[in-house]
């Protein structure tokens, strides 16, 4: 009977297409919008993904990675002195203006790495060597910088120069880094040189990057740091999620995307629910005939839910597939905020499952309520 239930569904091509179309649209809207939202949220954590260390130490008031409350340099030594800390190095991070050779400006995220160890160095060099950062006035610019400079008519390459705070920066390498939420390119240099570029301030240390000793957990080091007045610490994972949570709490982004996702669900329920209800309604006479011929409620339920889930599966596959194609297309074209972790298809699938179950249940109630004697009317 299940095979025949599918034949009944596929036989009404117009309704089938409408049902699949509705669920495809719903899946596409949800998967695409949630992926763009995830992409945007991921952008907010670009610094964390560019500089991969187990523990980040910051001023006690810091809530997320893009928020810097400068500390005294002495904090590096205080952290180093904690038991369980293998090493601790300073990091400068700030948004400064770079003046290009034609006089125009470009905001950059200046990242000053520990001069001795270069901890937090770019993961992938496109040209040049990281070690050349120790040369005078040396900086490494990421691929976003290359694009931004190019848009201003400057072909950035090794040997190119620009100014930060009236001091020369000479490009010794090009690297690949994660796109950030604000879109400014990352410019890597050493910590000491970053302080030279940065405007004069009493406190200029942004973060202390920490490696726990072997056998000591990152959480244990975090607890030790938090015992120091005026400091806080986060594991990389914790900082990642706190940063995302901060943006979700303090910006209108989740509301904007959430509204679209909810609309997608409502549209899905409305289209799929209504069309499936109509489909069941039009076939009610046949279902009543099957009831009269001895079809048990469980058989009819199996038929109805199979039809609902078959439609859902097709709509889900097409919708998520289209969202993935969209992502693939735009990712190829540039650096859009698009990130589809496995949770997105699972969430979308769960919502589609819910819509189908709801539609099927509404249809089934109608069938159960229909007296088999209706076939004689």
């Amino acid at each position, binding site marked *: *009977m299940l*095979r*025949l239930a599918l*034949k*009944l569904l*596929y*036989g*009404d091509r117009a309704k089938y297409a409408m049902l699949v179309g509705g669920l495809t649209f719903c899946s596409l809207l949800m998967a695409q919008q949630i992926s763009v939202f995830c992409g945007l949220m991921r952008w907010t954590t670009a610094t964390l993904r560019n500089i991969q260390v187990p523990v980040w130490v910051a001023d006690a008031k810091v809530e997320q990675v893009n928020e810097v409350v400068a500390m005294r340099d002495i904090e590096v030594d205080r952290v180093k002195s904690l038991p369980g800390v293998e090493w601790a190095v300073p990091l400068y991070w700030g948004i400064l203006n770079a003046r290009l050779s034609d006089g125009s400006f470009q905001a950059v995220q200046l990242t000053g790495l520990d001069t001795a160890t270069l901890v937090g160095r770019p993961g992938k060099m496109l040209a040049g060597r990281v070690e050349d950062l120790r040369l005078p006035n040396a900086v490494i610019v990421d691929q976003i910088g290359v694009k931004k400079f190019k848009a201003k008519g400057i072909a950035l390459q090794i040997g190119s120069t620009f100014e930060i705070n009236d001091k020369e920066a000479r490009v010794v390498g090009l690297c690949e880094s994660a796109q950030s939420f604000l879109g400014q390119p990352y410019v890597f240099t050493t910590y000491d040189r970053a302080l030279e570029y940065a405007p004069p301030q009493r406190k200029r240390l942004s973060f202390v990057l920490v490696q726990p000793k072997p056998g000591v957990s990152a959480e244990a080091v975090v607890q030790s740091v938090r015992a120091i007045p005026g400091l806080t610490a986060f594991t990389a994972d914790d900082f990642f999620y706190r940063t995302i949570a901060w943006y979700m709490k303090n910006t209108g982004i989740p509301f904007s995307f959430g509204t679209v996702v909810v609309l997608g669900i409502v549209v899905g329920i409305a289209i799929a629910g209504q069309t499936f209800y109509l489909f069941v309604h039009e076939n009610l*006479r*046949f279902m009543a*005939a*099957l*009831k*009269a*011929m*001895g*079809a*048990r*409620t469980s*058989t009819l339920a199996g038929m109805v839910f199979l039809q609902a889930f078959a439609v859902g599966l097709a709509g889900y596959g097409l919708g998520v597939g289209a969202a993935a194609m969209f992502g693939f297309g735009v990712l190829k074209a540039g650096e859009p905020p698009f990130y589809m972790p496995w949770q997105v298809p699972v969430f979308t699938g769960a919502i589609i499952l819910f819509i189908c179950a709801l539609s099927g249940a509404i249809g089934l109630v109608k069938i159960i309520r229909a*007296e*088999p*004697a209706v*076939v*004689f*009317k």
Partner: protein
Amino acid sequence: MNEPANGHSSSAIEARGVTKTFGTGDSSVAALKGVDLDVRFGELTMIVGPSGCGKTTFLSVLCGTMKFDGGSVQLFGRDLAGMRDAEVTAFRGKNVGFIFQQFNLIPTWNAVENASVPLLLAGASRQTAETAAQRLLDEVGIGQKRRAYPSELSGGQQQRVAIARALVHEPRLIICDEPTASLDAASGHHVLELLQKIACRPDRCVIVVTHDSRIFSFADRIAEMEDGQVKAVHGRGEYHAQYV
């Protein structure tokens, strides 16, 4: 009336004082007002009467597709009123075959799929069900149309598929609701001939509700209903001779 025949009581169905009212209060309508009827094995019984006299309601009650308010219905020795809904459904699936006025063939299933439904509902495998359905389609004369969809068949051919569907699971009661109403005279005549030929057996009974006086001559007995009651039961040819 209760003589044994082929291992069964000669009365396949015994309805006594059956009542059924639709609605409540001032708007209630008494459709059946104490109907008595015996339906015998091996006979084709017709229920006739004017529109609104309760024929279809009574037919629905007899085959267990509608609950009744009072009286009793014994269907092959089982008291319908004493059975749970699921039991009635299972009993109906095993013992009753249906032929409807509008055929009720599912439009996206072909002839053999439509005809095999009762066996599939009973849990038979697809192969078993379709083999049996094919045999019945051959018997009703449209075996070569096994892959045709209802829209590709004439009214008479569709009703033959419906007959095959009604008989495929070897039921003991065949219920026909206005089986010729959607057919021309020749097709209607042919359908009744088929029913008489392959449906009427000593271990089975056929009930036909009809308005169509052209087919009264096929009945072994005719129950004449009026105003929610069986007014009279006529033997073979009596009603035909008297009224037609």
